[in-house]
């Protein structure tokens, strides 16, 4: 049997609305330097021997957005591939590189500066140009269409959706890397200006800049590189149809299937009992509810009550987004990478004031595409 694959180091920049002092290369430098120093590794045979990057051509306004960072990830006379998807897919791919024996130690580095462009204009371009784009679709109004359908289908109260924002903001206050460091009340969320009904300003993740890096290694190397490797027990991903009108938007079927694959690989039978924390890539408030249901934590339509009960707060039955989540600010493309980083920090017991006591198994989630078209799920553990 192949050796297990462990994450041995993680680093994140502070997430900020506009990093004007640094180019994206310099953000990548910061996090790669950090994980190299944590492990004492350099690039090259016997050391970091492979790299998987994550970035987006449109956000970097050039083709082949990984080309300008090759020198930072060991790709000058070394192998590198880019995952042009959510960052969690880059971790998945890196783990596959190690599990297959292609690499012993792989670096993952993801970056995105949303501030240098216009997120809506970029996500607009993800739609079919002939039948969808001319109508004005983008990820924001696609999410609003889904939010309406989900909430109407199950009679979900706006207060329950707002409560998820309150929770993430409360957790974000405890994470020095989180962009938004401001608590809000349910009333403040519900009174924030309507942007795309039913979504209001505070339902929508803020524009953000940042980078994340981590190192994955095969078991025998991982144990020597850090005190507490975090093992990748399982991973899965799944796509849904491109056209919104082909999908059942009140559920998240693709997340359900992605989770099933990850649970099966990790041997998880009762997710709610076996997981100690979850990190969800919810860029819009209602997704916090929808995704919990698709992951099998709550029955369809019931996640709102669960969140309202405080069960997903730090100190609750199953804490969600102790990092503050994407709603506290992570760029679109690397949210899943930031989620994985938080899981690693938690499972290493290094989360400080936001530590989930005794955390052993965590779930990281990533999403891309309009209204959660594609989902990635990864199960991580310190055991």
């Amino acid at each position, binding site marked *: 049997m192949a050796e297990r694959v462990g994450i041995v180091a993680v680093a994140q920049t502070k997430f900020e609305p506009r990093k004007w002092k640094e180019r994206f290369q310099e953000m990548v430098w910061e996090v790669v330097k950090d994980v190299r120093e944590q492990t004492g590794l350099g690039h090259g045979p016997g050391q970091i021997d492979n790299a998987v990057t994550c970035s987006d051509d449109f956000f970097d306004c050039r083709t082949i957005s990984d080309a300008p960072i090759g020198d930072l990830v060991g790709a000058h006379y070394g192998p590198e591939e880019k995952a042009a998807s959510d960052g969690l897919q880059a971790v998945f791919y890196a783990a596959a590189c190690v599990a297959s024996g292609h690499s012993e130690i792989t670096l993952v580095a993801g970056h995105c500066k949303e501030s240098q462009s216009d997120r809506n204009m970029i996500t607009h371009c993800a739609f079919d140009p*002939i*039948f969808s784009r001319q*109508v004005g679709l983008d990820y924001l109004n696609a999410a*609003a269409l889904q939010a309406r359908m989900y909430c109407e289908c199950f009679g979900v109260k706006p207060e329950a959706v707002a409560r998820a924002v309150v929770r993430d903001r409360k957790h974000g206050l405890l994470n020095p890397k989180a962009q938004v460091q401001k608590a809000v009340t349910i009333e403040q969320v519900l009174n924030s200006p309507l*942007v*795309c009904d039913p979504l209001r300003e505070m339902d929508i993740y803020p524009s953000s800049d940042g980078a994340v890096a981590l190192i994955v290694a095969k078991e025998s190397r991982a144990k020597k590189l850090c005190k507490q490797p975090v093992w990748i027990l399982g991973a899965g991903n799944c796509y849904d149809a491109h*056209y919104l*009108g*082909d999908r059942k938007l009140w559920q998240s079927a693709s997340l359900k299937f992605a989770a099933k694959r990850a649970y099966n690989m990790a041997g998880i039978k009762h997710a709610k009992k076996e997981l100690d924390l979850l990190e969800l890539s919810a860029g819009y408030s209602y997704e916090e509810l929808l995704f919990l249901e698709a992951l099998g934590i709550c029955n369809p339509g019931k996640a709102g009550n669960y969140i309202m009960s405080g069960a997903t707060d730090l100190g609750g039955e199953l804490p969600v987004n102790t990092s503050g989540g994407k709603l506290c600010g992570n760029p679109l493309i690397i949210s899943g990478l930031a989620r994985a980083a938080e899981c690693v920090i938690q499972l290493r017991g290094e989360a400080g004031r936001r530590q989930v006591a005794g955390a052993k198994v965590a779930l990281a989630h990533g999403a891309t595409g309009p209204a959660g078209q594609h989902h990635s799920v990864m199960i991580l553990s310190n055991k």
Partner: protein
Amino acid sequence: MSEQDKWCYEVPGKLEVPYRYFAGEFGSKFLVALRDQAKILGCKCPKCGKVFIPPRSNCEQCFVKITDWVEIGPKGKVVSFCVVRYKEPYLPVEPPFVMALIRLKGADSDLTHLLSEVDPAQVKIGMEVEPVFSDSRKASILDIKYFKPAV
């Protein structure tokens, strides 16, 4: 002058690539029917019998080629909707406006389009709507100018 303006140079840029998006012979039939006859066509899978819009020449479930067309609508029902209140250069009309998922009569999937001639506060899921066709049609999805509440 802000600290940023004083110390940080940036070069305004734009990715602009001329391109001809291709509807294909199959997809073009849908657009031509819109333009010449003000008719909305769905394509029908020969195996499962499902009728899709927008058109596609294969059924993702059955993995068979789709060649048949059926007229659908023109009336339909609102499946979901949102009210766009922000401005972006690509939006087809001035905000605020209503965007909706519409299930046309005879279709098995929903079309995303605009909804007008209605107060956004009065729009309801399940509301019956009908298309208003543009006077100068150009073989575009916007040959349907928008949908409005059915009379």
